[in-house]
Protein backbone atom coordinates (compact mmCIF):
# COMPACT_ATOMS: atom_id res chain seq x y z
CA UNK A 1 0.00 0.00 0.00
CA UNK A 2 2.13 2.86 -1.19
CA UNK A 3 -0.58 5.38 -0.30
CA UNK A 4 -0.20 4.76 3.42
CA UNK A 5 3.54 5.33 3.28
CA UNK A 6 3.12 8.89 2.12
CA UNK A 7 4.02 11.44 4.75
CA UNK A 8 2.22 14.62 5.58
CA UNK A 9 5.02 17.12 5.57
CA UNK A 10 4.90 20.16 7.76
CA UNK A 11 6.38 23.38 6.41
CA UNK A 12 9.68 24.52 7.91
CA UNK A 13 8.73 26.22 11.15
CA UNK A 14 9.81 29.85 11.45
CA UNK A 15 12.78 30.50 13.71
CA UNK A 16 11.81 32.03 17.07
CA UNK A 17 12.66 35.72 17.56
CA UNK A 18 15.54 35.16 19.97
CA UNK A 19 17.97 32.58 18.56
CA UNK A 20 21.62 32.45 19.72
CA UNK A 21 21.01 35.77 21.45
CA UNK A 22 19.26 33.84 24.19
CA UNK A 23 22.48 32.00 25.09
CA UNK A 24 24.26 35.29 25.67
CA UNK A 25 21.27 36.59 27.56
CA UNK A 26 21.50 33.58 29.89
CA UNK A 27 25.26 33.93 30.37
CA UNK A 28 25.37 37.74 30.68
CA UNK A 29 24.35 38.18 34.37
CA UNK A 30 27.02 35.69 35.49
CA UNK A 31 29.74 37.42 33.46
CA UNK A 32 28.59 40.77 34.85
CA UNK A 33 28.51 39.46 38.45
CA UNK A 34 32.00 37.92 38.13
CA UNK A 35 33.38 41.16 36.66
CA UNK A 36 31.77 43.25 39.41
CA UNK A 37 33.09 41.07 42.25
CA UNK A 38 36.58 40.99 40.71
CA UNK A 39 36.46 44.78 40.29
CA UNK A 40 35.32 45.44 43.86
CA UNK A 41 37.98 43.05 45.19
CA UNK A 42 40.70 44.73 43.16
CA UNK A 43 39.59 48.11 44.53
CA UNK A 44 39.55 47.20 48.23
CA UNK A 45 42.02 44.30 48.48
CA UNK A 46 44.58 46.40 50.36
CA UNK A 47 42.12 47.44 53.05
CA UNK A 48 40.69 44.01 54.00
CA UNK A 49 41.36 42.17 57.28
CA UNK A 50 42.70 38.61 57.26
CA UNK A 51 40.60 36.49 57.64
CA UNK A 52 37.41 38.10 56.35
CA UNK A 53 34.17 37.93 58.27
CA UNK A 54 32.00 36.06 55.80
CA UNK A 55 29.15 34.42 57.66
CA UNK A 56 26.56 36.14 59.78
CA UNK A 57 23.86 34.83 62.07
CA UNK A 58 20.24 35.49 61.24
CA UNK A 59 19.08 37.47 64.26
CA UNK A 60 21.46 40.38 64.73
CA UNK A 61 23.72 40.06 61.70
CA UNK A 62 26.64 39.25 64.01
CA UNK A 63 29.68 37.53 62.64
CA UNK A 64 29.92 33.75 63.11
CA UNK A 65 32.18 32.56 60.31
CA UNK A 66 35.52 33.51 58.76
CA UNK A 67 37.26 32.80 55.45
CA UNK A 68 40.56 33.96 54.02
CA UNK A 69 40.15 36.79 51.51
CA UNK A 70 41.61 34.73 48.64
CA UNK A 71 39.52 31.70 49.50
CA UNK A 72 36.38 33.83 49.63
CA UNK A 73 37.09 35.36 46.23
CA UNK A 74 37.95 32.04 44.59
CA UNK A 75 34.93 30.25 46.05
CA UNK A 76 32.48 32.93 44.90
CA UNK A 77 33.90 33.24 41.41
CA UNK A 78 34.00 29.46 40.89
CA UNK A 79 30.44 29.18 42.19
CA UNK A 80 29.19 31.83 39.76
CA UNK A 81 31.19 30.34 36.89
CA UNK A 82 29.79 26.84 37.44
CA UNK A 83 26.23 28.13 37.83
CA UNK A 84 26.63 30.25 34.70
CA UNK A 85 28.00 27.37 32.64
CA UNK A 86 25.26 24.97 33.81
CA UNK A 87 22.45 27.41 33.03
CA UNK A 88 24.13 28.51 29.78
CA UNK A 89 24.43 24.94 28.50
CA UNK A 90 20.87 24.25 29.61
CA UNK A 91 19.53 27.24 27.69
CA UNK A 92 21.73 26.39 24.69
CA UNK A 93 20.22 22.89 24.53
CA UNK A 94 16.60 23.92 24.85
CA UNK A 95 16.86 27.49 23.61
CA UNK A 96 13.25 27.91 22.54
CA UNK A 97 11.55 25.13 24.46
CA UNK A 98 8.68 26.13 26.76
CA UNK A 99 9.88 27.24 30.19
CA UNK A 100 13.34 28.44 29.10
CA UNK A 101 12.24 32.00 29.76
CA UNK A 102 11.91 31.16 33.44
CA UNK A 103 15.33 29.51 33.49
CA UNK A 104 16.90 32.70 32.12
CA UNK A 105 14.99 34.76 34.71
CA UNK A 106 16.21 32.42 37.45
CA UNK A 107 19.81 32.88 36.22
CA UNK A 108 19.49 36.68 36.36
CA UNK A 109 18.04 36.53 39.87
CA UNK A 110 20.66 34.10 41.17
CA UNK A 111 23.58 35.99 39.63
CA UNK A 112 22.30 39.26 41.11
CA UNK A 113 21.82 37.72 44.58
CA UNK A 114 25.26 36.07 44.62
CA UNK A 115 27.00 39.07 43.15
CA UNK A 116 25.36 41.52 45.55
CA UNK A 117 26.04 39.45 48.68
CA UNK A 118 29.68 38.87 47.70
CA UNK A 119 30.26 42.58 47.06
CA UNK A 120 28.48 43.63 50.28
CA UNK A 121 30.53 41.12 52.28
CA UNK A 122 33.74 42.55 50.81
CA UNK A 123 32.64 46.16 51.38
CA UNK A 124 31.59 45.75 55.03
CA UNK A 125 35.02 44.23 55.73
CA UNK A 126 36.84 47.28 54.40
CA UNK A 127 39.07 49.10 56.92
CA UNK A 128 38.13 46.73 59.76
CA UNK A 129 41.08 45.58 61.87
CA UNK A 130 39.32 42.67 63.57
CA UNK A 131 36.73 40.80 61.52
CA UNK A 132 34.80 40.01 64.73
CA UNK A 133 33.45 43.57 64.63
CA UNK A 134 31.88 43.19 61.17
CA UNK A 135 28.07 43.40 61.01
CA UNK A 136 25.70 42.59 58.20
CA UNK A 137 22.48 44.50 58.88
CA UNK A 138 19.31 42.66 57.82
CA UNK A 139 18.14 45.55 55.67
CA UNK A 140 21.10 44.97 53.37
CA UNK A 141 19.98 41.37 52.86
CA UNK A 142 16.46 42.64 52.13
CA UNK A 143 17.84 45.08 49.57
CA UNK A 144 19.79 42.22 47.95
CA UNK A 145 16.67 40.08 47.76
CA UNK A 146 14.60 42.86 46.22
CA UNK A 147 17.40 43.57 43.73
CA UNK A 148 17.59 39.88 42.81
CA UNK A 149 13.84 39.81 42.18
CA UNK A 150 14.08 42.94 40.03
CA UNK A 151 16.97 41.46 38.01
CA UNK A 152 15.03 38.21 37.60
CA UNK A 153 12.07 40.19 36.25
CA UNK A 154 14.38 42.09 33.90
CA UNK A 155 15.83 38.79 32.64
CA UNK A 156 12.33 37.47 32.13
CA UNK A 157 11.37 40.54 30.08
CA UNK A 158 14.55 40.45 27.99
CA UNK A 159 14.25 36.72 27.28
CA UNK A 160 10.98 37.37 25.46
CA UNK A 161 8.19 34.85 25.06
CA UNK A 162 8.98 31.19 24.44
CA UNK A 163 7.91 29.70 21.17
CA UNK A 164 4.24 28.87 21.30
CA UNK A 165 3.40 25.24 20.61
CA UNK A 166 0.87 26.27 17.97
CA UNK A 167 3.74 27.56 15.79
CA UNK A 168 4.65 23.98 15.03
CA UNK A 169 1.22 22.75 14.06
CA UNK A 170 1.49 20.59 10.98
CA UNK A 171 -0.22 21.75 7.83
CA UNK A 172 -1.46 19.52 5.07
CA UNK A 173 -4.23 16.97 5.05
CA UNK A 174 -4.31 13.83 7.09
CA UNK A 175 -3.76 10.55 5.27
CA UNK A 176 -6.33 7.77 5.14
CA UNK A 177 -5.87 4.02 4.98
CA UNK A 178 -7.94 2.17 2.38
CA UNK A 179 -9.96 -0.43 4.28
CA UNK A 180 -12.59 -2.79 2.89
CA UNK A 181 -16.19 -2.47 4.08
CA UNK A 182 -16.09 -5.40 6.47
CA UNK A 183 -12.38 -5.16 7.18
CA UNK A 184 -10.98 -4.48 10.66
CA UNK A 185 -7.44 -3.25 11.15
CA UNK A 186 -5.13 -2.74 14.07
CA UNK A 187 -1.65 -1.24 14.19
CA UNK A 188 0.85 -2.07 16.85
CA UNK A 189 4.51 -1.39 17.31
CA UNK A 190 6.93 -1.23 20.20
CA UNK A 191 9.26 1.69 20.75
CA UNK A 192 12.20 1.47 23.10
CA UNK A 193 14.91 3.75 24.35
CA UNK A 194 18.27 2.26 25.37
CA UNK A 195 18.99 5.63 27.01
CA UNK A 196 15.94 5.39 29.28
CA UNK A 197 16.63 1.70 29.97
CA UNK A 198 20.20 2.58 31.02
CA UNK A 199 18.85 5.33 33.27
CA UNK A 200 16.51 2.81 34.92
CA UNK A 201 19.42 0.42 35.55
CA UNK A 202 21.59 3.20 37.01
CA UNK A 203 18.72 4.31 39.28
CA UNK A 204 18.17 0.72 40.38
CA UNK A 205 21.89 0.31 41.20
CA UNK A 206 21.83 3.57 43.17
CA UNK A 207 18.75 2.33 45.08
CA UNK A 208 20.51 -0.94 45.98
CA UNK A 209 23.75 0.76 47.05
CA UNK A 210 21.95 3.34 49.19
CA UNK A 211 19.70 0.59 50.58
CA UNK A 212 22.74 -1.36 51.78
CA UNK A 213 24.37 1.76 53.21
CA UNK A 214 21.34 2.39 55.38
CA UNK A 215 18.97 5.08 54.15
CA UNK A 216 15.88 2.96 53.48
CA UNK A 217 13.59 5.91 52.65
CA UNK A 218 15.83 7.28 49.90
CA UNK A 219 16.47 3.75 48.61
CA UNK A 220 12.73 3.08 48.52
CA UNK A 221 11.92 6.21 46.55
CA UNK A 222 14.80 5.52 44.13
CA UNK A 223 13.44 2.00 43.66
CA UNK A 224 10.00 3.38 42.78
CA UNK A 225 11.65 5.81 40.36
CA UNK A 226 13.62 2.95 38.76
CA UNK A 227 10.41 0.94 38.23
CA UNK A 228 8.59 3.94 36.71
CA UNK A 229 11.53 4.74 34.40
CA UNK A 230 11.93 1.06 33.51
CA UNK A 231 8.24 0.81 32.64
CA UNK A 232 8.52 3.44 29.90
CA UNK A 233 11.89 2.18 28.59
CA UNK A 234 9.97 -0.03 26.19
CA UNK A 235 6.41 0.80 25.23
CA UNK A 236 3.90 -0.81 22.90
CA UNK A 237 1.90 1.68 20.88
CA UNK A 238 -1.45 0.40 19.59
CA UNK A 239 -3.89 2.11 17.24
CA UNK A 240 -7.20 0.40 16.57
CA UNK A 241 -10.97 0.95 16.46
CA UNK A 242 -10.84 2.05 20.13
CA UNK A 243 -8.18 4.72 19.65
CA UNK A 244 -4.62 4.94 20.90
CA UNK A 245 -3.22 2.86 23.73
CA UNK A 246 0.24 2.97 25.31
CA UNK A 247 1.35 0.04 27.42
CA UNK A 248 4.66 -0.92 28.93
CA UNK A 249 5.90 -4.11 27.28
CA UNK A 250 6.36 -5.49 30.81
CA UNK A 251 2.73 -4.93 31.82
CA UNK A 252 -0.23 -6.12 29.71
CA UNK A 253 -2.49 -3.17 30.63
CA UNK A 254 -2.17 0.24 28.98
CA UNK A 255 -1.11 3.14 31.18
CA UNK A 256 -2.46 5.70 28.75
CA UNK A 257 -5.50 5.53 26.50
CA UNK A 258 -6.85 8.15 24.13
CA UNK A 259 -10.26 7.15 22.81
CA UNK A 260 -11.36 8.18 19.32
CA UNK A 261 -13.91 10.73 20.53
CA UNK A 262 -11.17 12.85 22.13
CA UNK A 263 -9.26 13.21 18.86
CA UNK A 264 -9.80 15.68 16.03
CA UNK A 265 -7.19 14.37 13.60
CA UNK A 266 -4.02 12.28 13.42
CA UNK A 267 -0.85 13.17 11.54
CA UNK A 268 2.78 12.17 11.60
CA UNK A 269 5.85 14.36 11.62
CA UNK A 270 9.46 14.56 12.78
CA UNK A 271 9.71 15.08 16.52
CA UNK A 272 12.75 16.41 18.36
CA UNK A 273 12.39 15.69 22.10
CA UNK A 274 14.82 18.41 23.20
CA UNK A 275 13.46 21.34 21.23
CA UNK A 276 9.81 20.24 21.20
CA UNK A 277 9.52 18.92 24.75
CA UNK A 278 12.72 19.92 26.55
CA UNK A 279 13.71 16.32 27.22
CA UNK A 280 12.92 12.65 26.91
CA UNK A 281 10.26 10.53 28.57
CA UNK A 282 6.62 11.20 29.33
CA UNK A 283 6.48 14.98 28.93
CA UNK A 284 3.85 17.63 29.48
CA UNK A 285 4.34 21.12 28.07
CA UNK A 286 1.93 23.98 27.46
CA UNK A 287 -0.21 22.91 24.51
CA UNK A 288 1.16 19.41 24.13
CA UNK A 289 2.09 16.28 25.96
CA UNK A 290 3.30 12.87 24.98
CA UNK A 291 5.77 10.05 25.22
CA UNK A 292 8.98 11.01 23.45
CA UNK A 293 11.70 8.39 23.81
CA UNK A 294 13.79 9.32 20.77
CA UNK A 295 13.93 11.85 17.96
CA UNK A 296 12.42 11.03 14.58
CA UNK A 297 9.10 9.84 13.27
CA UNK A 298 6.21 10.60 15.62
CA UNK A 299 2.44 10.09 15.70
CA UNK A 300 0.69 13.38 16.50
CA UNK A 301 -2.92 13.46 17.66
CA UNK A 302 -4.71 16.78 17.59
CA UNK A 303 -7.16 16.54 20.48
CA UNK A 304 -10.62 18.06 20.68
CA UNK A 305 -9.47 20.29 23.55
CA UNK A 306 -6.93 21.94 21.24
CA UNK A 307 -3.89 20.18 22.67
CA UNK A 308 -1.54 17.74 20.98
CA UNK A 309 -0.57 14.26 22.08
CA UNK A 310 2.66 12.96 20.58
CA UNK A 311 4.27 9.50 20.55
CA UNK A 312 7.57 8.89 18.83
CA UNK A 313 7.30 5.59 16.98
CA UNK A 314 8.51 4.11 13.68
CA UNK A 315 6.12 4.03 10.72
CA UNK A 316 3.93 6.68 12.39
CA UNK A 317 2.44 7.60 8.98
CA UNK A 318 0.63 4.25 8.76
CA UNK A 319 -0.58 4.61 12.36
CA UNK A 320 -1.91 8.12 11.61
CA UNK A 321 -3.63 6.92 8.43
CA UNK A 322 -5.34 4.07 10.30
CA UNK A 323 -6.33 6.44 13.11
CA UNK A 324 -8.03 8.80 10.64
CA UNK A 325 -9.85 5.91 8.99
CA UNK A 326 -11.08 4.73 12.39
CA UNK A 327 -12.19 8.32 13.14
CA UNK A 328 -14.14 8.45 9.84
CA UNK A 329 -15.84 5.16 10.64
CA UNK A 330 -16.74 6.23 14.16
CA UNK A 331 -18.23 9.50 12.84
CA UNK A 332 -20.29 7.70 10.18
CA UNK A 333 -22.05 5.67 12.85
Amino acid at each position, binding site marked *: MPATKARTTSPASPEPPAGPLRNWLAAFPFIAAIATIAGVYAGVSGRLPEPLGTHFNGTGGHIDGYTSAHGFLTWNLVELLVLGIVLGVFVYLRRTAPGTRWVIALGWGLAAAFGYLSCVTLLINVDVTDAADVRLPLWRVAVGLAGALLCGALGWLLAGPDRRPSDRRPAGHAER*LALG*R*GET*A*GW*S*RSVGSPLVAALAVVTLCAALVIGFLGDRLVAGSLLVAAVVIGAIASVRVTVDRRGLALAS*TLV*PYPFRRIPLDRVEEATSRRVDPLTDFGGWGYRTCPGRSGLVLRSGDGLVLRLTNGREFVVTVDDAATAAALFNTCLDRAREQ
Partner: protein
Amino acid sequence: MLFRVDPSSAVPLGDQIAASVRGAIADGSVHTGERLPAARALATSLGVNVHTVLRGYQRLKEEGLIELRRGRGAVVTGAASPARARLGEVTDQLIVQARQLGLSDEEIVSVVRVGLTGR
Protein backbone atom coordinates in the same frame (compact mmCIF):
# COMPACT_ATOMS: atom_id res chain seq x y z
CA MET B 1 2.92 -3.22 11.93
CA LEU B 2 -0.52 -3.18 10.42
CA PHE B 3 -2.86 -6.14 10.97
CA ARG B 4 -5.93 -6.41 8.76
CA VAL B 5 -8.68 -8.99 9.02
CA ASP B 6 -11.83 -9.33 6.98
CA PRO B 7 -14.37 -11.77 8.47
CA SER B 8 -16.32 -11.81 5.17
CA SER B 9 -13.30 -13.18 3.27
CA ALA B 10 -12.96 -16.90 2.50
CA VAL B 11 -9.41 -16.92 3.90
CA PRO B 12 -9.32 -18.10 7.56
CA LEU B 13 -8.80 -15.19 10.01
CA GLY B 14 -5.66 -16.80 11.47
CA ASP B 15 -4.13 -16.93 8.00
CA GLN B 16 -5.07 -13.29 7.41
CA ILE B 17 -3.18 -12.32 10.57
CA ALA B 18 -0.18 -14.40 9.44
CA ALA B 19 -0.37 -12.71 6.02
CA SER B 20 -0.26 -9.26 7.67
CA VAL B 21 2.98 -10.13 9.49
CA ARG B 22 4.45 -11.78 6.40
CA GLY B 23 3.62 -8.71 4.35
CA ALA B 24 5.28 -6.42 6.90
CA ILE B 25 8.45 -8.54 6.87
CA ALA B 26 8.37 -8.73 3.07
CA ASP B 27 8.15 -4.94 2.59
CA GLY B 28 10.90 -4.39 5.16
CA SER B 29 8.85 -2.45 7.71
CA VAL B 30 9.44 -5.13 10.34
CA HIS B 31 12.92 -6.41 11.14
CA THR B 32 14.60 -9.24 13.01
CA GLY B 33 14.16 -9.07 16.77
CA GLU B 34 10.92 -7.07 16.60
CA ARG B 35 8.28 -8.33 18.98
CA LEU B 36 4.75 -9.00 17.78
CA PRO B 37 1.95 -7.82 20.08
CA ALA B 38 0.77 -10.29 22.72
CA ALA B 39 -1.91 -12.61 21.31
CA ARG B 40 -4.53 -11.50 23.82
CA ALA B 41 -3.92 -7.81 23.16
CA LEU B 42 -4.04 -8.26 19.39
CA ALA B 43 -7.23 -10.35 19.68
CA THR B 44 -9.09 -7.61 21.59
CA SER B 45 -7.64 -5.00 19.25
CA LEU B 46 -9.04 -6.75 16.16
CA GLY B 47 -12.15 -8.14 17.83
CA VAL B 48 -11.25 -11.78 17.14
CA ASN B 49 -10.71 -14.83 19.33
CA VAL B 50 -7.33 -15.32 21.04
CA HIS B 51 -7.06 -18.80 19.50
CA THR B 52 -7.44 -17.30 16.04
CA VAL B 53 -4.41 -15.07 16.67
CA LEU B 54 -2.45 -17.98 18.14
CA ARG B 55 -3.26 -20.06 15.05
CA GLY B 56 -1.83 -17.31 12.88
CA TYR B 57 1.28 -17.04 15.05
CA GLN B 58 1.70 -20.84 14.98
CA ARG B 59 1.62 -20.72 11.20
CA LEU B 60 4.36 -18.05 11.14
CA LYS B 61 6.42 -20.16 13.53
CA GLU B 62 6.15 -23.18 11.23
CA GLU B 63 7.31 -20.98 8.35
CA GLY B 64 10.36 -20.04 10.45
CA LEU B 65 9.48 -16.35 10.48
CA ILE B 66 8.88 -15.99 14.21
CA GLU B 67 9.85 -17.69 17.45
CA LEU B 68 7.27 -18.30 20.14
CA ARG B 69 8.73 -18.23 23.63
CA ARG B 70 6.91 -18.50 26.90
CA GLY B 71 7.08 -15.13 28.65
CA ARG B 72 8.79 -13.36 25.77
CA GLY B 73 5.97 -13.66 23.30
CA ALA B 74 6.42 -13.78 19.53
CA VAL B 75 9.70 -12.44 18.15
CA VAL B 76 10.71 -12.13 14.49
CA THR B 77 13.60 -14.55 13.92
CA GLY B 78 16.98 -13.90 12.34
CA ALA B 79 15.98 -16.20 9.48
CA ALA B 80 12.99 -14.00 8.64
CA SER B 81 14.26 -12.06 5.65
CA PRO B 82 11.94 -10.22 3.27
CA ALA B 83 12.70 -12.88 0.64
CA ARG B 84 11.73 -15.65 3.04
CA ALA B 85 8.47 -13.89 3.84
CA ARG B 86 7.72 -13.49 0.12
CA LEU B 87 8.25 -17.25 -0.26
CA GLY B 88 5.42 -17.72 2.22
CA GLU B 89 3.25 -15.37 0.17
CA VAL B 90 4.02 -17.30 -3.03
CA THR B 91 3.16 -20.56 -1.25
CA ASP B 92 -0.16 -19.06 -0.23
CA GLN B 93 -0.90 -18.15 -3.84
CA LEU B 94 0.04 -21.68 -4.96
CA ILE B 95 -2.40 -23.17 -2.45
CA VAL B 96 -5.21 -20.78 -3.42
CA GLN B 97 -4.76 -21.56 -7.14
CA ALA B 98 -4.57 -25.33 -6.53
CA ARG B 99 -7.75 -25.22 -4.43
CA GLN B 100 -9.53 -23.29 -7.16
CA LEU B 101 -8.59 -26.16 -9.51
CA GLY B 102 -10.17 -28.57 -7.03
CA LEU B 103 -6.92 -30.24 -5.95
CA SER B 104 -6.80 -32.01 -2.59
CA ASP B 105 -4.04 -31.32 0.00
CA GLU B 106 -2.19 -34.53 -1.02
CA GLU B 107 -2.36 -33.55 -4.69
CA ILE B 108 -0.92 -30.08 -3.91
CA VAL B 109 1.99 -31.65 -1.99
CA SER B 110 2.61 -34.08 -4.85
CA VAL B 111 2.69 -31.17 -7.33
CA VAL B 112 5.52 -29.64 -5.30
CA ARG B 113 7.26 -33.01 -4.96
CA VAL B 114 7.15 -33.57 -8.72
CA GLY B 115 8.63 -30.11 -9.21
CA LEU B 116 11.46 -30.94 -6.76
CA THR B 117 12.40 -34.29 -8.38
CA GLY B 118 13.07 -32.55 -11.68
CA ARG B 119 15.96 -30.54 -10.09
